[in-house]
Every structure is written in C-alpha cells, then in structure tokens.
C-alpha cells in the first residue's frame, strides 16, 4: 500500500471520526447563538473559527455539519452502487431484450445532467435530508450502471465465462462469483470519487434550500447563509466553501490512489 494511500485513508478516517465525535469535539451547541455575537472573526475568544450571521460558533457548526454532509455524500453513493451494479452487471448477462430495456431506461435518466436530475427530484419530494439522499441515489445510479456495464462488456464473451457456464454453473453463480469480483475494483475506485461529487451535489441542494432545514448545520446551507457576507466577512464565507472543496478533493484523491493500488486501468481480462 502506498504512503499516499495510507495518508489519504488516515485523513478520511479522521474526518469520519470528527463527524462521529462532533458532540464531544464541538465547543458549543451548533444551533445556539446570540445576534449580539454575530459575524465574529476567526480567532475570537471562545470561537476559534468565528461565528455566523446568527452568532453561532462556526467550528461547532462545521463539525456537526460534517454529519449530514458526509451522510448525504456516502449513503447515496452506496445506494447507487448497489442499484447500479445490479443493473449494470445483470443486464449485459441477460437476454438481449432485457439488456436493451434496462440500459435504455437508464439512458433516459443519463440524458439529464446529474445535478439537474437531483434538483428536479428533490424539488418534487420537498426539502429535507432524506430527500437529498433519495434524490442523489437516483441521480448517481446511471453513471454507476455505465461503469459496471463497460467492465462487464470487456469480458462478457471471454472464455472463462463460457467454461463456467459449460461446467454447469447457474446464471446467478456466473454473475455473482465470476463477473462481480472482476467488476469490483473499478466500482470501488469510481464510487470513492463519486463521494466527492455527491458531497458537492448535496451541498448544492442545501444551498438551493432543498436540503436540510434551518437551523441544522450542513456545509451547503452554511455556505448559502454566509455567501451574502462575501464582501463584509470573506474569511467567514470561505470557511464552509473551503471545507466542501477540501473534502471533495480528499475523496477524489483517495479514488485516484485506490485506482493505482488496484491497478484498474492496467488490468486485462482474458
């Protein structure tokens, strides 16, 4: 395992731990504030990262905000991975008409840019964290299907599958024991990268008022509330923005490192 991968895994673990331990780590309650204490700069007494427009401690809100933000980044990707793998793996191994029907249906969703699709679904369902999770799960499924399907197509006609079938292995056994393991590395790498995208999408939905409801701390809604202060308090406005950026970069880098580790590009199947 490369040093880079170890470092990135450690950072990811630290991030998840910070979210998990937010109640212990946060110096203040995330929704407690006084308007007399609003927009204090970073470094103020008791507020290392300053306060927001309601006088709430920004460090505490960033820590607490990691929970819904990471949840909205990871859960939809997991759901999309399950659903997308099911479709992307099983469809190409099925009869022609099943494959065509399944993949063309996905193509319809794929025709919409992911973030637009997520906004449309979230707007239809009404604001809320679970709305974000559902909307992103649906919006992220089509690209996962594509990745898995592409992998499957590389070996669908390979000899080892024919051998497995000839030896009497059931269709399910071929799909799950022979095909799935070959797909997994690419899937893991892609989904790791996808977490970064999902966090940005989730922040985007909150920014549009379709995510968590106030006063819940969430990075996207924090950015939305502070963006009006871009001129007056740029440092404060940059805090949630930078957090989203860095975490998204972290998951992208992790995906890259995993790709190198698992040697996805170079792998050839015969």
């Amino acid at each position: 395992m490369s040093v880079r991968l170890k470092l990135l895994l450690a950072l990811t673990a630290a991030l998840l731990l910070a979210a998990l331990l937010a109640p212990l780590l946060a110096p203040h309650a995330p929704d407690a504030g006084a308007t007399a204490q609003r927009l204090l700069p970073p470094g103020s007494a008791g507020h290392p990262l300053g306060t927001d427009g309601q006088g709430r401690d920004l460090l505490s809100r960033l820590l607490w905000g990691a929970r819904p933000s990471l949840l909205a980044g990871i859960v939809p990707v997991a759901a999309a991975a399950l659903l997308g793998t099911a479709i992307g793996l099983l469809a190409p191994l099925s009869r022609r008409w099943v494959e065509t029907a399944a993949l063309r249906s996905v193509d319809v969703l794929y025709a919409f840019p992911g973030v637009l699709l997520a906004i449309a679904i979230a707007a239809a369902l009404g604001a809320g964290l679970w709305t974000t999770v559902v909307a992103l799960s649906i919006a992220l499924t089509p690209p996962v299907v594509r990745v898995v399907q592409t992998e499957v197509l590389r070996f669908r006609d390979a000899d080892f599958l024919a051998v497995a079938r000839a030896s009497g292995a059931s269709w399910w056994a071929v799909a799950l024991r022979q095909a799935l393991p070959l797909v997994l590395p690419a899937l893991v790498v892609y989904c790791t990268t996808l977490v970064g995208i999902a966090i940005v999408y989730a922040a985007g939905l909150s920014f549009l008022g379709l995510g968590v409801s106030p006063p819940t701390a969430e990075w996207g809604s924090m950015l939305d509330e502070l963006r009006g202060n871009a001129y007056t308090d740029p440092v404060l406005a940059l805090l949630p923005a930078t957090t989203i950026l860095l975490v998204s970069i972290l998951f992208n880098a992790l995906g890259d490192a995993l790709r190198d580790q698992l040697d996805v590009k170079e792998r050839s199947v015969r």
Partner: protein
Amino acid sequence: MTDPLLRLRRLSAALVLPLAATALVACGGSDSAATASDAGGSTTAATAAATPTRSSGGDGSGGTLVIGSTGATLPNPDTLIGGNGWEGTRFVANQIYDQLVRWDLTDDAAVPRIVPSLATSWRTDSAGTTWTLELRRDVRFHDGTPFDADAVVFNFDRYLDDRSEFFSEATIGDVGLYAGLFAGARKVGPYSVEITTRGRDGHFLNDLTYIPIASPAGVRKSGNAGFARAPVGSGPFRFASQSSQQLELVRNAGYWAGAPKLDKLILKPLPDASARIAALRSGEVNWIEYPNPDDVPGLRDAGFQIVSNNYDHVWQITFDQSQRPWDDVRVRQAANYAVDREAIANDLLHGTADPAEQVAPRGTFAYDPAGDRYAYDPEKARALLAEAGYGDGVKVTIAVPTGGSGNLIPIPIAEKIQQDLRAVGIDAELKTADFDTLMKFMAEGRVALGASAQAGSTPLFASDAIFALSVKSDSPWFVGNPTGRSVDALVDRAAATVDDGAREQTYAEAARALTEEARFLTVVNDRNSRALAPTVHGFVQPQSWFLDLTQVWVGQ
C-alpha cells in the same frame, strides 16, 4: 418576484388570483438599506430623523441613472402587464405612463396622498357608483397625439370590454385586480369622462392610481402584441429600447408636469444581492435596490448614499388558525411577545427595518405609535402559553421562503424567530421553499408545505383591493383561516365608504382588531433602503414603495 407571478398566471385561467398574487409579491418590497432605529418603540418621526431620505442636493440636471433592480427579469412595458409586479410598476409603468390620479411622492415627511394627475378634479353621485372626472387639456402622448376623453375611454375599453378591438387578456390580467369594481367609462365631453362602478366604491381613487393610460394611436399602430416593443404613454420618460440585459428610457422633454432632469433612465435586473453591490462599486450602475443589510455600513463608509424611509411593509408570519395551537389567541399573542424584534431590526438588518409590534405598518395612515402592542416580553409569553395549556411546550411548523421581493433576508430572520420561540417553549420547525412555491399555495388558499404558519411580507395599505384580499376570511388567498368575522365587516364597511377620513378610520380600526386578535406574528417594517452613488442628486425617498424620479440628476 417576477417569475413566480408569471408562472402563477399560467397555472390558472382565473385572472384575478394570479394577478393579485403578482401584485402582492411585487409589493412587499424590501430592499433596503438604512440606519438604526432607536430601541424602544421608535416613532415615525424619530426614525425618519435618524435616516436620510434624501440624496445630496444641489442644482443641476442631466446624466444617466442606471438602476440595479431586484427582479430576475425586466418588466413588460405594455402598461401594467409588468412581469415584475410592483417593481415593474414603479420603475417602468409609472415612468412611461400617467394615471388619472396618482400618489404625491414629493414629500418624504408625510404619508402619500392621492392628488390630481391626468384628471384635474372628480366628483361622485350620492350612490358612490358614478364618478365624473374632468381631464387636463394640455397633455400630449409621446407620439404627439393629444390626450382627451376618447383616450380614457379607449384604455378602459382595452382593460374592461372584451368586445373592444384591442381588449387584451394579458393586460387585464394585472389591471383586473384594481379594476375589479369598474363597470366602464363613457365620454361626457371632450375633456370629461364618467366612470361607473359596480356598487358603492370607496376605494375608486386608490384603484385608479394603478390604471395606466396608454396612447390609443400607439396601441392602434403596434397592435396589442407589438405594443410592448413600442409602448407609448404620456409620462415623464419615453421608451427607448429594451434588450435582455436592460431597459432604456429617455427624458420626455415635453412632459406636462415639467420635464425630468435626467437625460436617461436605465433599468438592469440584478436579482443577486452580491451582484448588485459589485455593480454599484464598479460603477456599472449608480443606484441599487436593497443592498444586503450587512453591506450597508461598508457602503456608507465608502461614500455611497444610503436612503430609506418608512413605507407600507410588514414582514410577518401568518398563523393557520384551523390548526392547533394557533386556534388559541393566547398562543398567537405569546408568539408575538416572544420575539426580540429589536435584535432582528438592529443586529440582523442594521436598522434597515423597524420592529413591527402592530399590524399597521409605519408609513401608513393606520399606524399609531401608541398602538404598539407586543413589546419583547418572554415572561408574558410563557405565562400565556401556560394559561393556554401549553406550559410543557408545543411543536409548530413554519413555511419560510428562501427569498423573494419584500421578504428581506427571510431565513436568517426566521432562524432568529425560531430561537426566540424556542426560549419560551414553542418548538418551531422551519420548512423552506422558493417563494414561487409558497405563492402557489397561498393563491390556492392553503398554508404551504403542510406547515401550520407561513412567513412572508405584505403591503397592506397601499391598495384597498389587496388589503381585502390579504385579511378577509372569504379571500381566495391564504389569510390564516380566521374564525372571527369582525374584521370582515370592518373591511367591507371601509371599502364602501367614500369619505376619506371615515374610510381610513375604519381601516385603522380593522388593523387594531387584527393586532388584538394576533392574526399575524408581525416582525419588522422594512424601510425600503437603496444605495446611491455619490453622483446621484435630488432624490427624495417618499414613504412609499413608489417613487418620483423627475427631480433626480446625475453629476460627475
């Protein structure tokens, strides 16, 4: 404010509702910028003194005024079709067109009164249903054709008579809200018209201030469809051009009431508050509507003029009285006592708004400084809640718009209210949605998003038509499902009272009843702040959403 209305209109074939919604949206006006109000129950005079309402003086003329407005799109310049609700009315319709009567917007110290405009005098019969108006004889439209009784009849036919050649569904859409009681207009002399109303109409003149008079020759020449591209009125500014980026008007040198000082007036839609500030600081525009309150001190330090004044605006939460716990007046009053309005007005809004402790806003005839009913008193709030049986706390849900004209900075305000309510035992969940969505619910007469209360803003007294739609229990709009009917009776009585003094007294009585029964959680009265470049001179900000731009000029 614009888009929601347009979409609303498409949603429903019924004209009045969507239109009304438009007007409502538009009017709430909030854009603001200004100064601190003094803490305890500031009076109109006190606040006005604290905040400049005039831009720097001096003699001069000329220049180009470029306004960064809050609307997402430009208004349609065909009379009142708008597209920006009242923002279109004030910056475009009222500049291109005159009405038969208008608000006097020249005095910043007084609540505006209705004064003659294209009509010089009027009288009504004893039934209050037939109005005879004498018209000015020296007015020409921008195309050179004279204004006369035929022009008035032509416009009223265009608005009201579906058999008229130039009847326009689109136009009556917006005008219909105000012209609802008008039956028709008839020429009784070359400069004399008679307008009849269905029933005794106490707010006839108020409605007339919203009915623009277009050039009949202009409409005939361009047709209904083309008139928006070549609008012709008799107002202080003439239409020059319109692109997707801006709408350009030029000085009407022959304006009957005296030519405006500006050479040119340009309107640019800049819905994003940060983009407006950037445009002002870079000199792309020299006037912006509603600077973000947090930006106001910095703008002032940088030498920009911040002007503001009272006007008819209240940011409020409407309780749904068909749901617990709001069916109990003590709970509604408790919520009113629980909110620290001073903190909202001074900390969050930097004095660009004043605390609203009664339903009648400052800047209206109905506002009574002695009528401030709900000073911050969390103890009293807790006691009232306990008395109502909610001593252990109660859960409610409030629908809050994410933005929209007149709504100021809705989410930060709502979050502060949420904190204050929680402190007395009312646990409020906030449900957010764009204003468009909330307006749709409102126009359907329902509280939005399954909530039990809805936040927003209203201009209660600028239009009698809107006042009735905003408070009467039989309104098609959502007004809180009130159980009492006393306010309905007062509003009906006022609407049928022709005498100004008596009518206003009755409206004020209705406002007091609304305050007493705590129909709303009134929060703040906005002060309609705007930021002007130091080069803009001669502007007097009236106590109104509307304004007079004829005395404004731009120097070096």
